[in-house]
C-alpha cells in the first residue's frame, strides 16, 4: 500500500467551483489568523501564554473562540441550504445532491459537536470554578487535553472541505447507508473520527467538572448553596460521563465496519443496524439535555441578576434539573418510534417523553415568578432570556405533540421535526449561551460588550428565528420530508422562500454579533469594568476582579448562604483587604496538552485516509506524552505571597477609582449599595 493510504491528488477540491471556494475560504481563514498574529507580533504571547496554558479561564476563552468560529461555519451551511431549497422547485438549484447532502451533514455535526459543546465547555470553564470559590478546576492539565482534542475534531471537519469530502449521511450517520457498501470514500470516516476524538475530550471534561464541583468548593459552599448554573453543570457532567460512552461505542463499531470489514451494522452477514440507532440515541437524547441544562443555568443567573431579586424556587429548580437528568435516559426511543417496536414499548417511551415536559414547565414558572415584581433591567442577556421563555414554550408544545407515537408516525422525518428541534435548540441552547457570553464577557476581558449592538443582535435573532422556522412547521404538516435537495410540489415553495428570508434576518443577527465585538473592543475604555461586578451580581464569580487574577481568589471566600456575593455586599464584608496574603500553589504551563491534541488530529487524519504508519506514530506520540507527563512530579509552582500582594494591591487601587456601582443610574435600579472599597 502507498505511504499516503488512499490520499491522492484527486482528493483536492478542484472538481467544482463551489467546493473549491469553500476550501479557499477555509485556507484563507487560517492564513489570515496567522497573518493577524504576525502583524501584532503576538506569536510569543499566543504560544507561551495560550497554547501551553492550563488556566481554566484561558481555556474557557479558547473554547468560546472555537465555538464562535464554528458557529459562523455552521451558519454558512444553513444559509446555503435555505437558499437552495428556496429555488429548487423542479430544478437542481445551485447545489448538486452530493454537495447538498454534505452541507446538511456538516451543519448538524458542527452545530452540535463543535459549536454547542465547545461553547458550553467554555462558559463552564470560565465561570463555574469562580462560582464555587475555587482557584481552578480539579485537573488543569486534563482540561487542556480536552480543549485540544475538541479542537482536533473541529479541525478534521474543517479540513474535510480542503482534502476529500465530508459525510453525506447526516449528523446522525445512520447505517446501512453510512456503511462501506453504500458510502465508500472518506466522508463518513471524517465524521466518525471528528466525533470520536472530540468525544474523548468531552468525557474528560465531564469528569473534570464533576470532581471540581464535588471536591473543590470554598469553605461553607454546601451543595444547596451552589448557584444554579453550577447545579446544572453538575447534572450535565453526570450526563456526559454516562452518555458519551454510548456514542463512543456506536462510532467505534461503525469505524470497525468501515475499516476492518466487520458486520455490526451491515445489511447482511448478521449485522443489526437498529443497534446503531439505539446506541446513538442512548447518547443522543441525554446529549440534548447536556446542551440545554447549562443554558437553563445561565437563564437562572441572568433572570435573578437583572430582576434584582432572589431566584424564585431555588430548590424546585434544583430538583427539576435532577429529574430532567434522570428522565433523559428513559426517552431515547422517541427518536425512532417508526422502527416498529410493539405498541407497549412505544407507549412507554411516549409517556416518559411527555413526563419530561413537567420539570421543564416547573422551571419556566420559576423564571417567570423570579421576574414577577422584580425591578427588571432590560440588558441584552435578559432580552435573550425573555425571548427564550416565550419561544421555548412553543417548541416544548410541538415536542409534546411528537411524543405521541401515532402523531410521530405522521411527522417522522418531516420538516415539522426540524422546526421542533430548532425551536428547542436555538432559543433554548444558543440564546442561553449568547446570554451567558454577553453576561460574563466583562468577567473574561474586563470590559462590557456594547449593549446597543447586543440588543440589535437579539431582535434579528428572534425575528429571524420565527420567520425561518415557523414555515417549517407548516411544511411538515404539508408532508415535506427533511433534507430535500429539490422538490416538485409548488405549494411548498412560498414557505421555503419565507424561511430563506428568515435565514437572511438571522444573518443580520450574526453580523450584529460581529459588529458588537468589534465596536466593544474599539471602545473598550468607555466600558471598563473596574469593580469586577458590573451587573450588581449575586454569585461569587463577581467577587473576583475582571479579568480574574490567575488564582481567582487571593483568600478563599467563606460562604454563609445562597447568593454568597450578594450576602457579602449586604453584610458589608465585600471587597475587604485581608490581613496578610499566603503563598499560592499554581499549575505550571505545559505543551503536553497541545502536543496530544496535534497528535490526536494526525491520528484521526491517518485513520480516515488509511495511512497506517502515521496512525501508529501519532499513537506513540500520545502514549509518550502521557507517560512523560505522568512521571513528572514537578508540575506546580508556588506564587509567593509578595507577588499575590502586588496583584491585589493593584486591584484595590483600581477599586478606589471605580464608580460605586456600575448599575447606578439604570432605570429601576434597586439601590443595593456596594460598600466603599476599603482603601
Amino acid at each position: 500500500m502507498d505511504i499516503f493510504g488512499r490520499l491522492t491528488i484527486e482528493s483536492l477540491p478542484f472538481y467544482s467551483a463551489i467546493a473549491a471556494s469553500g476550501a479557499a475560504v477555509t485556507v484563507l481563514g487560517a492564513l489570515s489568523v496567522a497573518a493577524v498574529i504576525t502583524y501584532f507580533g503576538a506569536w510569543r504571547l499566543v504560544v507561551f501564554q495560550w497554547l501551553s496554558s492550563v488556566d481554566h479561564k484561558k481555556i474557557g476563552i479558547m473554547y468560546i473562540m472555537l465555538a464562535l468560529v464554528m458557529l459562523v461555519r455552521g451558519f454558512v451551511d444553513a444559509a446555503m441550504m435555505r437558499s437552495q431549497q428556496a429555488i429548487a422547485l423542479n430544478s437542481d438549484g445551485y447545489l448538486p445532491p452530493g454537495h447538498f447532502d454534505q452541507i446538511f451533514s456538516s451543519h448538524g455535526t458542527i452545530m452540535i459537536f463543535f459549536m454547542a459543546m465547545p461553547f458550553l465547555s467554555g462558559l463552564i470553564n470560565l465561570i463555574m470554578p469562580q462560582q464555587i470559590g475555587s482557584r481552578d478546576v480539579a485537573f488543569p492539565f486534563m482540561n487542556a487535553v480536552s480543549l485540544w482534542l475538541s479542537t482536533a475534531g473541529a479541525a478534521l471537519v474543517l479540513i474535510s472541505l480542503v482534502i476529500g469530502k465530508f459525510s453525506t449521511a447526516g449528523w446522525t450517520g445512520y447505517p446501512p447507508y453510512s456503511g462501506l457498501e453504500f458510502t465508500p470514500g472518506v466522508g463518513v470516516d471524517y465524521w466518525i473520527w471528528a466525533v470520536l476524538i472530540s468525544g474523548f475530550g468531552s468525557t474528560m471534561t465531564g469528569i473534570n467538572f464533576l470532581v471540581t464541583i464535588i471536591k473543590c468548593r470554598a469553605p461553607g459552599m454546601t451543595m444547596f448553596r451552589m448557584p444554579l448554573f453550577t447545579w446544572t453543570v453538575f447534572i450535565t457532567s453526570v450526563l456526559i460521563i454516562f452518555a458519551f460512552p454510548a456514542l463512543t461505542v456506536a462510532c467505534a463499531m461503525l469505524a470497525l465496519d468501515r475499516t476492518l470489514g466487520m458486520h455490526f451494522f451491515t445489511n447482511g452477514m448478521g449485522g443489526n443496524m437498529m443497534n446503531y440507532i439505539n446506541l446513538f440515541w442512548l447518547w443522543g437524547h441525554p446529549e440534548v439535555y447536556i446542551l440545554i441544562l447549562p443554558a437553563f443555568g445561565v437563564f437562572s443567573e441572568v433572570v435573578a441578576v437583572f430582576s434584582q431579586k432572589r431566584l424564585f424556587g431555588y430548590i424546585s429548580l434544583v430538583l427539576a434539573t435532577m429529574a430532567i437528568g434522570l428522565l433523559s435516559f428513559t426517552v431515547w426511543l422517541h427518536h425512532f418510534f417508526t422502527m416498529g417496536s410493539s405498541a407497549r414499548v412505544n407507549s412507554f417511551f411516549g409517556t416518559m417523553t411527555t413526563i419530561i415536559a413537567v420539570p421543564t414547565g416547573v422551571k419556566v414558572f420559576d423564571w417567570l415568578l423570579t421576574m414577577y415584581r422584580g425591578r427588571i433591567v432590560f440588558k441584552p442577556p435578559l432580552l435573550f432570556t425573555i425571548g427564550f421563555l416565550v419561544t421555548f414554550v412553543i417548541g416544548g408544545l410541538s415536542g409534546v405533540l411528537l411524543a405521541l407515537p401515532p402523531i410521530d408516525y405522521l411527522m417522522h422525518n418531516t420538516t415539522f421535526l426540524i422546526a421542533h428541534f430548532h425551536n428547542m435548540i436555538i432559543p433554548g441552547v444558543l440564546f442561553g449561551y449568547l446570554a451567558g457570553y454577553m453576561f460574563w464577557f466583562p468577567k473574561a476581558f474586563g470590559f462590557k460588550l456594547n449593549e446597543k449592538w447586543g440588543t440589535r443582535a437579539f431582535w434579528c435573532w428572534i425575528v429571524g428565528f420565527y420567520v425561518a422556522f415557523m414555515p417549517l412547521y407548516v411544511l411538515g404538516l404539508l408532508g415535506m420530508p427533511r433534507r430535500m435537495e429539490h422538490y416538485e410540489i409548488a405549494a411548498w415553495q412560498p414557505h421555503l422562500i419565507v424561511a430563506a428570508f428568515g435565514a437572511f434576518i438571522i444573518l443580520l443577527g450574526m453580523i450584529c454579533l460581529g459588529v458588537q465585538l468589534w465596536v466593544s473592543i474599539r471602545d473598550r475604555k468607555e466600558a471598563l469594568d473596574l469593580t469586577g461586578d458590573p451587573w450588581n451580581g449575586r454569585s461569587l464569580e463577581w467577587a473576583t476582579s475582571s479579568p480574574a487574577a490567575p488564582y481567582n481568589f487571593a483568600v478563599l471566600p467563606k460562604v454563609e448562604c445562597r447568593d454568597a456575593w450578594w450576602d457579602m455586599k449586604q453584610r458589608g464584608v465585600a471587597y475587604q483587604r485581608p490581613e496578610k496574603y499566603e503563598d499560592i500553589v499554581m499549575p505550571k504551563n505545559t505543551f503536553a496538552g497541545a502536543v496530544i491534541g496535534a497528535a490526536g488530529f494526525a491520528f484521526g487524519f491517518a485513520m480516515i485516509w488509511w495511512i497506517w504508519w502515521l496512525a501508529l506514530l501519532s499513537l506513540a506520540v500520545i502514549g509518550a506524552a502521557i507517560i512523560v507527563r505522568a512521571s513528572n512530579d514537578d508540575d506546580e509552582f508556588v506564587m509567593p505571597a509578595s507577588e499575590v500582594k502586588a496583584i491585589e494591591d493593584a486591584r484595590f487601587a483600581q477599586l478606589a477609582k471605580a464608580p460605586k456601582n456600575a448599575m447606578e443610574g439604570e432605570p429601576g435600579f434597586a439601590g443595593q449599595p456596594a460598600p466603599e472599597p476599603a482603601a
Partner: protein
Amino acid sequence: MSSAATMSVSTRDTERYEEKDFGFWLYLMSDAVIFACLFATYLVMVGNAAGGPVPKDVFSLNRAAAETALLLLSSTTFGIAAVSLWAGDRSKVLLWLAITFLLGAGFIALEFSEFSGMIAKGAGPDRSGFLSAFFTLVGTHGLHVSVGLVWILVMIGQVFAKGLTAPVASRLMRLGLFWHFLDIIWVVIFSVVYLPGLL
C-alpha cells in the same frame, strides 16, 4: 517558604490525591458503560452467525479457564504488591509488580493465540455479526489489559527511579483500581460469553 505555607501545601497534596482517586473512579464508571454497551451488543448479536461458526465451534473451555486463572491470580499478586506498598517495602513492590506483569502478559499471549487461531480457521471478526461482536468485546478488554501492562512497566520504572514517594504510591493505587476493574469485567465476559457459549 514559611512553615505554615509548607503545611498548607502538603494538606493540599492529600486533597489532590483524593481528587485524582475520585476522578479515576468516575473514569472507571464511564468505562463500565462502554463495556455495558459492548455486552448488550454481544447479547443482541450472539445468534447472528450468518451461516458461519457458532460459539460452540470456536470457544475452548480449557483456554478460557486458563485465561481466567492467570488474570485472577494477577489480581491477587497486585494485591500483595499493594500490601508491600503500605509496608514500605520497595523491593517487594517491584517483585510483585513484575509477577503481576508476567501473569498479565501470559493472559494476553493466550488471548492472542486464541484470536489468531480463530482468524486462521476463517472465524475472524469479518465473518459474521456474532464474531464482530465477540472480537470487539473481548478485544476491548484485551486492549485495556495491554494498556495496564504498559502502565505496570511505567510504575516499575517509577518505583525503581523515585522510590515509594507519595505521588508514586497514589498512582499505584489507581493502577490497582484499574487492574481489579479489568478482572471484574473478565469475570462478566467469562459468564456471559464463554460459559453460555459452551454449555
